[in-house]
């Protein structure tokens, strides 16, 4: 909330169509000496679902963690390049990662609810950080987030239970609700369905389609069908010779799955990949 109001009052630094959404320019990322990403440049459109695909270890997680400055949390990790969030470089000196993460929420590969907190407190955790105190407002916000995450009906009677007492799929949706509660502008999802059964997976896919009305969504997935089902845009990453991930192709999902420009994309999508 804070940031949205503030942003509209600031002069826009980069005019043009690229102002909203995320513009990634020549992004490089390292873990210590190991380069995990090389020269990735692309533009993520607002209110669209962008999927990131590629073989294991090609740097998909690393890429989306660079979009909310979570990469630097890993000891020894380093980033170079620009990531413009609505025109502002989130890696510019003086930018506090705390404020970036407030605007760009994240759902992790494995569900990670806070086990010492109740379901309610899990969802409220982000709101409490920002100093929201009034109980009425709080329970409204929690309910709204749980509704959005399609979890409300299942947990409305066990809001006081521990967050880790839910099933795996429920936990993942709890994590989604937790991220949605603070009303970010962008939602990053790192293989949110990798630990889930088909039913839970399809619920989360429905959710993603519903959420794009209000959020810009970037979703990492190993599942081609899933990428085809939920996303508008697709980015395909592949390891280079030195195992650093590179962007091979980026474009409309439909076009990429029917008529890829790069033969490596085609090989990967059709499952003929080495």
């Amino acid at each position, binding site marked *: *909330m*804070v940031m949205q*109001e*503030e942003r509209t009052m600031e002069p826009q630094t980069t005019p043009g169509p690229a102002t909203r959404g995320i513009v990634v320019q020549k992004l490089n990322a390292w873990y210590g000496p190991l380069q995990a990403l090389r020269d990735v440049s692309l533009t993520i459109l607002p209110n669209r679902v962008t999927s990131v695909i590629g073989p294991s270890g090609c740097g998909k997680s690393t890429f989306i963690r660079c979009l909310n400055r979570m990469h630097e949390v890993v000891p020894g990790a380093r980033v170079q390049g620009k990531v413009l969030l609505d025109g502002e470089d989130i890696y510019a000196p003086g930018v*506090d990662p*705390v*404020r970036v993460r407030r605007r760009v929420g994240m759902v992790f590969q494995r569900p990670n609810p806070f086990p010492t907190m109740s379901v309610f407190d899990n969802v409220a955790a982000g709101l409490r950080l*920002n*100093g929201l105190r009034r109980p009425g407002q709080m329970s409204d916000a929690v309910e709204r987030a749980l509704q959005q995450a399609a979890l409300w009906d299942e947990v409305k009677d066990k809001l006081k239970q521990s967050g880790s007492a839910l099933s795996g799929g429920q936990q993942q949706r709890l994590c989604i609700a937790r991220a949605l509660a603070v009303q970010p502008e962008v939602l990053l999802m790192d293989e949110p369905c990798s630990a889930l059964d088909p039913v839970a997976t399809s619920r989360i896919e429905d959710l993603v389609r519903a959420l794009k009305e209000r959020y810009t969504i970037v979703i990492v997935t190993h599942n081609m069908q899933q990428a085809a089902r939920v996303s508008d845009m697709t980015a395909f990453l592949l390891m280079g010779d030195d195992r650093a991930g590179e962007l091979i192709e980026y474009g409309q999902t439909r076009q990429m799955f029917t008529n890829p420009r790069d033969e490596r994309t085609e090989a990967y999508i059709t499952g003929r990949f080495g």
Partner: protein
Amino acid sequence: MTTDMQVYLRRRTTSYLMVGLCGLATLVAVSILLLVVGYTLVKGIAFLNLDFVTQTAQPLGEPGGGIRHEIIGTLVLVALASVLGIPVGLLAGAYLSEFGGGRTGLVVRLVADVLTGVPSVVVGIFVYVLVVQPMGTFSALSGGVALAIIMLPVVARTTEEMMRLVPATYREAALALGIPRWRMIVSVVMPGAMVGIVTGSMLGIARIAGETAPLIFTALGNRFGFAGLGQPIAAMPLQIWRYAVSAYDTWHQQAWAASFLLVMLVLVISITVRWLTSRRYH
């Protein structure tokens, strides 16, 4: 909007403040160490020379004097404790590591951990009742027994941990050759864990070298030099204590100087242990 900004600024300040406090706490902890070691050096400097190590105590008023008896006494006590404590500790550690998967192992492990926490003064009283009373005299032997009891659980637990680190492939390879299990343990696991076992013993020694309380009721102290295991014996920590609570400045200085030597001994052992353990299984 201003209040949101205020909330953010307050959160950021709190974060910096708490991070700073944690750093400060660390600085305080480390400075205490440096202060203690520094003081022993500065205050004991007058006595930190070769004479102090080689000479025996002088009567009050006469210059010089050293702690030769005390050094020898401490060496004898530590050696005695090692001879009594290390073999048993090693075997107990071997048991815990190699056969300790069941309930007995669980109990022994807990008992060892708990024994590590028994106050050394209680061990001293126990050995007084167990050895000194029946023998009718304070003695080097009882001091050694007390120190051995204190180091035993330390050696046992470290040995266990270190032997467990020996990769299972070693064990399996040895067993596949058809040699009996005990040979496998003695000739494969133990040598493989040698560094660790030495480490455990050294940790035990570091732990007992500076012990004072249990020696008061067992070794007692002796100003006339080593007179056999059945007689009272001098020890550096005991002498530091007696000098420290005395009323004389030169004795205080000698307490500082002896403390410096003792601290150096313990620090050197600890640093060696650190160096040895940092190189295991890389």
